[in-house]
């Protein structure tokens, strides 16, 4: 409770930092914030042109030119939110070591800034993607709103995991290095680029254990097939996400003193 009040009194700092982080990226460029729109447009264009026009890639069972690019984008965009959050959370304490050692402020501001700025980036990219869906006549319909609860689960999962590892990373810097490698494998072990149906049965069972498989599949089902997500496969992931967050808080409470000493 006290923690929340402290965070509330630092809301100006949190909001200001998110905005400044966004500005800092395009600070010395002529086009400024326009780049934040051009980048995702380019990405969506590349996938669409290459996969639907040049390679003529088709999703099994869907007869639409854009189906595969939508499939790809819905996976990659949400994956990159996940990887941005975890990657930044892992290094969050190391990156701000000087600040943490010298100034007394609520430490939880830092993850909130990371979350806020990742969400801002995601909103821009996903907004453009949604616009593309509407313009190309592929907007799924009402099931679209189901994306938001899934996003919530995904963010909690990413924050809980990233911050827990972030705390441990202060003591054992190997974790940050290892996670970078692990994330690459994780990407390919999640059905983002390929549909899970093309996998042999045994491997598919293994892939199904991956919590991100459920989340990403849900996004793809919504965006490509206009299917409401199967909540029974999602709540276990949500539970894991909540547990990770609780564990992370406990770890932080127990180790925060030692953490500053180690920085």
């Amino acid at each position, binding site marked *: 409770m006290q923690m929340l009040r402290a965070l509330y009194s630092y809301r100006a700092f949190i909001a*200001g930092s998110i905005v400044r982080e966004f500005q800092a990226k395009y600070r010395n460029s002529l086009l400024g914030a326009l780049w934040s729109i051009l980048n995702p447009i380019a990405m969506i264009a590349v996938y669409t042109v290459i996969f639907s026009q040049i390679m003529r890639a088709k999703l099994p069972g869907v007869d639409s030119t854009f189906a595969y690019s939508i499939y790809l984008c819905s996976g990659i965009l949400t994956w990159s939110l996940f990887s941005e959050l975890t990657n930044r959370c892992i290094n969050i304490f190391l990156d701000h070591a000087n600040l943490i050692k010298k100034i007394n402020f609520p430490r939880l501001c830092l993850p909130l800034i990371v979350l806020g700025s990742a969400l801002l980036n995601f909103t821009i990219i996903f907004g453009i993607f949604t616009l593309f869906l509407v313009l190309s006549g592929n907007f799924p319909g009402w099931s679209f709103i189901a994306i938001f609860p899934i996003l919530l689960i995904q963010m909690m999962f990413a924050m809980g995991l990233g911050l827990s590892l972030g705390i441990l990373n202060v003591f054992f810097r190997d974790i940050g290095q290892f996670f970078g490698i692990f994330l690459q494998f994780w990407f390919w072990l999640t059905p983002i680029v390929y549909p899970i149906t093309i996998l042999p049965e045994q491997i598919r069972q293994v892939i199904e254990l991956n919590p991100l498989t459920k989340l990403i599949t849900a996004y793809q089902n919504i965006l490509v097939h206009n299917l409401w997500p199967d909540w029974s496969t999602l709540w276990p992931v949500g539970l894991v996400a909540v547990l990770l967050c609780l564990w992370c808080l406990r770890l932080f409470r127990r180790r925060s003193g030692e953490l*500053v000493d180690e920085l």
Partner: protein
Amino acid sequence: MGTIHVHNVCKAYRQYPNRWARLLEWILPFLGVRHTVKPVLRNINIDVKQGEAVGIIGINGAGKSTLLKLITGTITPSSGSVSVTGRVAALLELGMGFHPDFTGRQNVYMSAQLLGYSVADIDRLMPEIETFAEIGSYLEQPVRVYSSGMQMRLAFSVATAHRPDVLIIDEALSVGDAYFQHKSFNRIREFRSLGTTLLIVSHDKAVIQAVCDRAVLLNAGEVAMEGPPEAVMDYYNALLAERGETRIEQEQTADGGVATQSGTGTVSIEAVKLVDLQGASVVEVQVGQPVSLLVRAQVHTATEQLVMGYMIKDRLGQTIYGTNTHHLNQTLYDLDQGAVIDFNAHFLVNLGEGSYSFSVALHASDTHIGGNYEWKDRALVFQVINVGKEHFVGSTWMAPTLEIKQ
């Protein structure tokens, strides 16, 4: 509001022999403790009342910064308790959180938000910050084009924009030009008169004595002394001198007498002392004070001629004064082996404030080129302070008798 209580505080850091040891201890705690505890602060008790100004002094590594960090709350004590009431502003490192690509004004917002101000507060304080920093149109330029002095001005103005209940200063004021130092000191004094509690870490004797009611001397993680600033500073200086001497000795053994000491060793310097009229050793001398330099020489091999010379150098190594017994027509002749000679040079310290050192030499003739027995640089370091004399600048004291005709 504005009190500081530090009660029985210890701070120790864990040290592991290697990274694997920590992992083992975390994963298998039942296998026993693998770290060693390195204490930085031991049983610190400090109470500061509201409105009091306390100076903390101590040599590098005594634990001053650690103590300040404990009080500001960035680190937690291993045992004991720290409680501070009221709003704390800490000038531990100025310019924290400045982003080089943003303008001064944007950075003011950023760092003030980091201190917990709301945008409305900052809008209100902004004109005051602007006038105090006096950096003019640079305020709209990115901070990366600032000089370090300008950054410091801006950072100080932000940190002290609002009067805190407790102000903690860690030698931050040593940066900036004389004008701004003066200005920032005025602001600190003004805060004090309005009831702000001050905690200052400084090596500058003048600062501590001018501002503080009380001083605390930290040595090797413990409170070595606490009391009136003057008494504590004197004790600190003695501690420094002692340290200086041992360091010089260490240097001698390590260098094998290359830099600090040279010569044939025919006659050796046994002792060098600076004493006052009562014969007590001094490391701190007042302007104009009569003192004596005592040099004891020991003859190891019978020698025909012996001249003792000394030089006084300022902290930059410039010779201020030097002479020897040849020029004073007191060359000694035909000395037997084993003879012990005491040279005693009496003079008035007509020097300006600052730190000075003696170089002492024993040689055969007017210069040490003709037979150098022993030469010792920085044989002794002493401080000159101005007590009771009218203010002056420079390294010599040549007080005028002033006549004015109108």
